[in-house]
């Protein structure tokens, strides 16, 4: 697909095209993310919702180029709008530039790494695993500040330095950060960042170790660390899943205030549609590695087309209307092993409206002529016809016994765990 940026689309900060990520394991090839398309606008919160094994975390890791062996991004483009960068790389890699946009997947590895922290930053579900337990929180954040300072003060050295010391590789390594790397300036900045994320008495808390923080406070500290490089895009992977509901609200409020104050774009990944509904502008629904439906919140809540989106909504206990009964989706998330994936719609074996047409993979359709609401399902084009129903489709008595839990466990690795292996 050729991408021609139009002037009117200049709000797109990121355009992801056909991004595909696979894992090559002993059990076979796992199609974790399959040709997904989406955009991230400047200053928006884009939500990705899906169940475990849907590929949502792998999609996030692909975006920030943190896919590790045995995984690999095997195709697609990630166009990032940055006129300066475009100019800088135009000579060396003309194919990677299109107007003000740069396809970051075509940049050199060093070039991609240089974007971490300064363009993309990421926070995870478990902040404990992102901090070194034996170094104070303040020092770790100061270190992240210093990395970004040096990188921007001397862009030429960016490549070499960030490879060793970028925020992310720092997160990934369990090596002790070096003390001489932290200056009084960056320490002050770290305290400011801690204050910005609502940590009381930040100067004192900066001197404390991660274990002295509560879960909510550590999540705030991780956000402070992620902000050290003043990124344009913050990817938040299940940032509140491990937290209690009152703390979850605090963190969601913090994210949305930060977005407001700094104009940051946020990609919020969650299994909880309530969390997504609280702070996202637009949302994409993932199923079996595909982004099966996208739209703004009301498209998804009120006029969703994909039976999986509808099933997901119906299976959530409704707080406001408890009398409405739960409609569980029968069966389980399918295996993502390439050898076990059929050619048709991946949802067909659980879909109450599966038709003979669905034996062939549905392309992406727009819904009712609305370019911003798209779906991978034939129902966007034709109404359900019982005469064409796939026979014996759902056996709701017996949930599928072949769900590949192993795949899921592999896919749910956080990058930090990858490194510890």
């Amino acid at each position, binding site marked *: 697909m050729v991408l021609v940026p139009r002037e009117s689309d200049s709000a797109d900060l990121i355009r992801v095209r056909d991004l595909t990520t696979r894992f090559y394991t002993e059990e076979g090839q796992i199609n974790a993310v399959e040709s997904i398309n989406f955009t991230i606008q400047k200053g928006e919160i884009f939500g990705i919702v899906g*169940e*475990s094994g849907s590929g949502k975390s792998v999609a996030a890791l692909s975006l920030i180029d943190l896919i590790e062996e045995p995984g690999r991004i095997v195709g697609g483009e990630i166009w990032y709008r940055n006129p300066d960068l475009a100019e800088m790389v135009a000579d060396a890699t003309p194919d990677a530039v299109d107007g003000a946009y740069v396809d970051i997947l075509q940049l050199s590895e060093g070039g991609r790494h240089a974007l971490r922290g300064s363009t993309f930053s990421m926070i995870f579900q478990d902040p404990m695993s992102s901090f070194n337990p034996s170094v104070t929180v303040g020092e770790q954040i100061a270190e992240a500040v210093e990395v970004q300072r040096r990188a921007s003060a001397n862009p030429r050295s960016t490549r070499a330095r960030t490879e060793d010391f970028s925020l992310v590789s720092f997160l990934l390594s369990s090596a002790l950060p070096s003390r001489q790397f932290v200056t009084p300036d960056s320490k002050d900045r770290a305290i400011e960042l801690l204050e910005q994320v609502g940590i*009381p*008495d930040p*100067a*004192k*808390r900066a001197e404390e170790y991660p274990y002295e923080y*509560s*879960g*909510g*406070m550590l999540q705030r500290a991780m956000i402070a660390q992620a902000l050290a490089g003043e990124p344009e895009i913050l990817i938040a992977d299940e940032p509140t899943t491990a937290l*209690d*509901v*009152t*703390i*979850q*609200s*605090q963190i*969601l*409020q913090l994210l949305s205030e930060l977005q407001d104050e700094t104009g940051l774009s946020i990609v919020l990944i969650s*299994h*909880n*549609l*309530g*969390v*997504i*509904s*609280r*702070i996202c502008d637009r949302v994409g629904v993932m199923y079996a590695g595909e982004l099966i439906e996208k739209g703004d*919140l*009301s498209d998804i*809540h*009120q006029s969703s087309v994909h039976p999986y989106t509808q*099933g*997901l*909504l119906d*299976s*959530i*206990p*409704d*707080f*406001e209307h*408890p009398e409405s009964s*739960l*409609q*569980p*989706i*029968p069966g*389980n*998330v399918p295996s993502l092993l390439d050898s076990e994936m059929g050619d048709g719609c991946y949802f067909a074996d659980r879909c109450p409206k599966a038709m003979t047409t669905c034996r062939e993979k549905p392309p992406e359709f727009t819904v009712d002529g609305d370019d911003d609401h798209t779906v991978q399902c034939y129902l966007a084009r034709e109404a359900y016809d019982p005469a064409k129903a796939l026979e014996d489709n759902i056996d709701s*008595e*017996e*949930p*599928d*016994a072949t*769900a590949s*839990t*192993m795949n899921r466990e592999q896919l749910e690795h956080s990058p930090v765990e990858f490194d510890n292996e």
Partner: protein
Amino acid sequence: MSEPLVHVSDLKKHYYEQDTLLDRALGNDPVAVRAVDGVSFDIHEGETLGLVGESGCGKSTLGEALVNLETPTTGDVTFDNLPVYDLDEDQEREFRRRVQVVFQDPYSSLNPRMTVGETIREPMALHDMGTKAERKETARELLEQVGLDADHTERYPHEFSGGQRQRIGIARALGVEPDFIVLDEPVSALDVSVQAQILTLLNDLQAEYDLTYLLITHDLSIVRRISDRIAVMYLGKFAEIGPTEEIFENPQHPYTEGLLENVPRANVEEQYRDIQIIAGDVPSPRDPPSGCRFRTRCPEIIQPAAFDLNQDHWRAIVDLKTQLENGSLSTDWLVSRAANKRDDQSLEQQLREHFELPSTLGNDTADAVLNRVLSALTDERPDDALGILETEFESLCERESPALEETEPNRCTACHLYQEDSD
């Protein structure tokens, strides 16, 4: 009302830290962690009591004490009129059959080396129920009943998904024909769509076998589906207990209200909903706050009788006091703030802004007190500031612990706002 199946009276479970020989030799005093700190309630036959609370509130410890997996520090539990902590051997055996537990983690609660059939038959064999052939048959029937294939008895747990393993765990519990099942976060590890399947199954089984459930969970959105009554727990005590619908429709305790309000709704209006955020963290059960345990976070904390301030302003004063109490507003903080004056703001202005204190509280006496507090702070005397706050702005909620009292038929709430004796 008939006799309750489970009766709990004033149950306490305290753990002690720093209680080793070495600690004693070093003269360290043992520190009590008051996981469960005096709860009383009944569970009636055939009902589901939902026990709701955030992590560290003591709900799981309470569940373990109920089924005698933990010996309480003080207090009693009776099951079908028998004292749970004082059973003879036969009674104990019978108790272990009639009371079952289903755990949260379907990945670690099943023995990976046992087939599904063996897993389900094991407790039946332990209790000498039926012949071997009969047990085999029962296991097959149970598997079907929980929605799996009878022929799966020869498979191993790793061949099943999380939801299916939870079904196996439920089948195992059912095999010994229990009366009472403690469900400890039974669906928390599962995806939403699978959660719904399991909740429906639990509902159906309860109706069919007349089961009594204690459902322990942090997730309010599931408790409403299958609980008749709920108890809300905070820092080792009950905040509120009553019929599920009444509590959801009209929560009394400010903590319950906050919990319900903060659950994210999966609907399109969610972004526009006005939510009162409950600030701060849950205090440590090693050193719970005096008086009401929720007072450090409660938006409705009661004002001294002499004042009638705007409640947000009052809460701001309490926040200032709380931070002084727990040391997060230290001299260091004041010094650093005074040193780098932002936007030419005086330290007092900075303090007012930081704590969202208005320039006037609309009450001369209160303003005078607050001014004294702030000048003590600008003079870097935080202890004096705290002293003034403690004498002049003392809340009933700090002074007295509210008892769990009946507020309406079948409903009890532990909050001074609902008590006769309040100021």
